[in-house]
């Protein structure tokens, strides 16, 4: 009877863990509303319906693809490694599709969530949902940088591509237990590539697509003057963008804190506090920095700064002390201002919402920051006896026992970790960059250009592409509604 009691408790605690994942997944899913309002607020009124529609359809297309194919490629052989779950855990559902051992590149198994365990198991379903929400976040990032000129047809293909292949690829290499996560075992670099909630896996991977996409599609008409000077093209609703920012902030508690995947230790609370601290410092740093740089506290930068802090802390939020979270956020707030200015004015890639500065640059900064600030207190054995964070057992100390995730500030052992992080960054830039660049180049061929005609662009995409005006009752919101080339 005591045994029964114990196992009832085990079951209940596992399901409480799962509950946290579901609550977290809902919060992350809600971030889509934040992205939608932020991005739509930052475009001109004449493209608002187009931008909003992308932000809804990207969930539909991406999720359909991830459900049918992507989840199987990303986790097929690994299943839902939720701590303490007897079902799912360590029970491979499929097997490697490409690679083996420490060097797996893709998995297979569980397409469309079919197969023995899937239908029955709440654990797998919950894990799927959480991962789906992360995929959705990555997928929606380029809709911001490519806004106001992207053909809707071409965008639809991106949604399917990102959900089916693009996101699951890097996902399999990291959270799926693939080769990057095993760098600790295979080549003895710290605990392997560690990215707690996805500064890299989600934000930089989405961000690099935002970068290549914006580069391939080219700047909006009028963005660069005859002299090549960048012109500001203010978004049509600062209020909407601000509301979106605060929704994203809210959702981020699910993004980061629920990434503990369990509540048995109190770590999720530290994660949540670190998240808020980095956001605060990012916001304040960007505010003062832009104020100094341009003479006014640009509201768009206050928003981007808060988000930059959030993106940057995402990789390391479980591994650092609060003071370090503050420092990471503060630096993120400065980075975002500088990178946005640099990309806009020097590189001359046109990114209407600042996605490159927020997600790409600070995603990379977040990944590296872990290699610097991780305190070594956490990630020793998060998944059960003898398994380090990310399913590794490596970095044994002299006594032969696994160590927590440690950055260079906490001992020279940290250099291996930093190296693993740097490799992750490089892979994002080079490999994911090349894949996304190739995808957009190929799309150009398929759709005879991924960009709308210049007449349509000047008129605004809403009527020609979507058939509606975003604001039909307001004067002056659409300059030239129609394709005037009759």
């Amino acid at each position, binding site marked *: 009877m005591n045994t029964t009691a114990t196992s009832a408790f085990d079951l209940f605690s596992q399901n409480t863990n799962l509950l946290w994942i579901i609550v977290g997944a809902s919060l992350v899913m809600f971030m889509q509303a934040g992205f939608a309002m932020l991005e739509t607020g930052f475009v001109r009124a004449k493209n608002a319906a187009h931008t909003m529609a992308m932000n809804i359809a990207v969930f539909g297309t991406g999720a359909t693809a991830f459900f049918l194919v992507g989840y199987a490629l990303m986790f097929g052989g690994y299943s839902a490694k939720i701590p303490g779950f007897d079902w799912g855990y360590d029970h491979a559902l499929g097997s490697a599709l490409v690679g083996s051992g420490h060097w797996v590149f893709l998995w297979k198994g569980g397409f469309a969530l079919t197969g023995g365990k899937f239908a029955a198991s709440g654990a797998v379903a919950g894990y799927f949902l959480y991962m789906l929400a992360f995929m959705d976040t990555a997928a929606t990032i380029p809709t911001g940088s490519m806004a106001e000129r992207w053909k809707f047809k071409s965008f639809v293909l991106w949604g399917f591509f990102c959900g089916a292949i693009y996101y699951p690829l890097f996902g399999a290499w990291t959270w799926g237990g693939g080769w990057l996560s095993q760098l600790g075992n295979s080549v003895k670099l710290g605990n392997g590539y560690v990215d707690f909630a996805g500064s890299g896996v989600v934000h930089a991977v989405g961000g690099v697509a935002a970068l290549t996409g914006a580069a391939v599609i080219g700047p909006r008409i009028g963005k660069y003057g005859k002299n090549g*000077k*960048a*012109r*500001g*093209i*203010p978004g049509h609703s600062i209020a909407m963008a601000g509301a979106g920012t605060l929704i994203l902030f809210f959702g981020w508690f699910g993004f980061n804190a629920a990434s503990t995947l369990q509540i048995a230790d109190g770590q999720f609370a530290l994660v949540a506090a670190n998240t808020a601290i980095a956001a605060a410092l990012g916001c304040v740093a960007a505010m003062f920095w*832009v104020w100094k*740089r*341009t*003479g*006014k506290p*640009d509201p*768009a*930068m206050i928003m*981007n700064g808060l988000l930059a802090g959030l993106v940057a802390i995402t990789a390391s939020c479980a591994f650092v002390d609060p003071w370090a979270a503050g420092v990471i956020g503060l630096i993120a707030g400065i980075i975002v*201002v500088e990178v*946005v*200015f640099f990309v*806009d*004015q020097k590189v001359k890639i046109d990114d209407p919402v*600042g996605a490159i500065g927020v997600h790409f640059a600070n995603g990379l900064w977040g990944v590296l920051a872990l290699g610097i600030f991780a305190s070594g207190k956490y990630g020793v054995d998060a998944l059960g006896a003898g398994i380090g964070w990310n399913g590794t057992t490596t970095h044994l100390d002299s006594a032969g026992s696994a160590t927590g995730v440690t950055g260079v500030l906490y001992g020279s052992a940290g250099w291996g970790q930093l190296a693993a992080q740097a490799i992750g960054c490089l892979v994002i830039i080079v490999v994911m960059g090349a894949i996304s660049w190739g995808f957009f180049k190929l799309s150009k061929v398929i759709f005879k250009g991924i960009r709308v005609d210049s007449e349509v662009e000047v008129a605004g995409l809403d009527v020609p592409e979507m058939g509606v005006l975003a604001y039909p009752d307001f004067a002056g919101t659409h300059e030239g509604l129609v394709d005037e080339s009759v």
Partner: protein
Amino acid sequence: MVQLVTAVIKPHKVEEVKDAVKAMGVQGMTVDEVKGFGRQGGHAETYRGAEYTIDFIPKVRISVLCDDSDVDAVVDAIVSAARTDKIGDGKVWVTPVSRLVRIRTGERDGEAL
């Protein structure tokens, strides 16, 4: 005969101009929002670090139909109510109207005011 007095003024002067014109005994007016460009010039702001200029400045345009005999007084009333002595105060001008009808009654010209 009737003439049309048109003025382009600073937006925060609308109430005062309205009151001044009303005080003249004019029964009605029509206003709309316009953007002006003139000596006053615009100004540059930065948005996420890139400059942009706001070179059309919001103004309000006032159109008053009035009797030949009242034109001078109306023009003067507008000028003195709208004046701030700062650049950008705007202009008032008068154009001839060859015919005027009140839609409700069909009354014409002076009657229609």
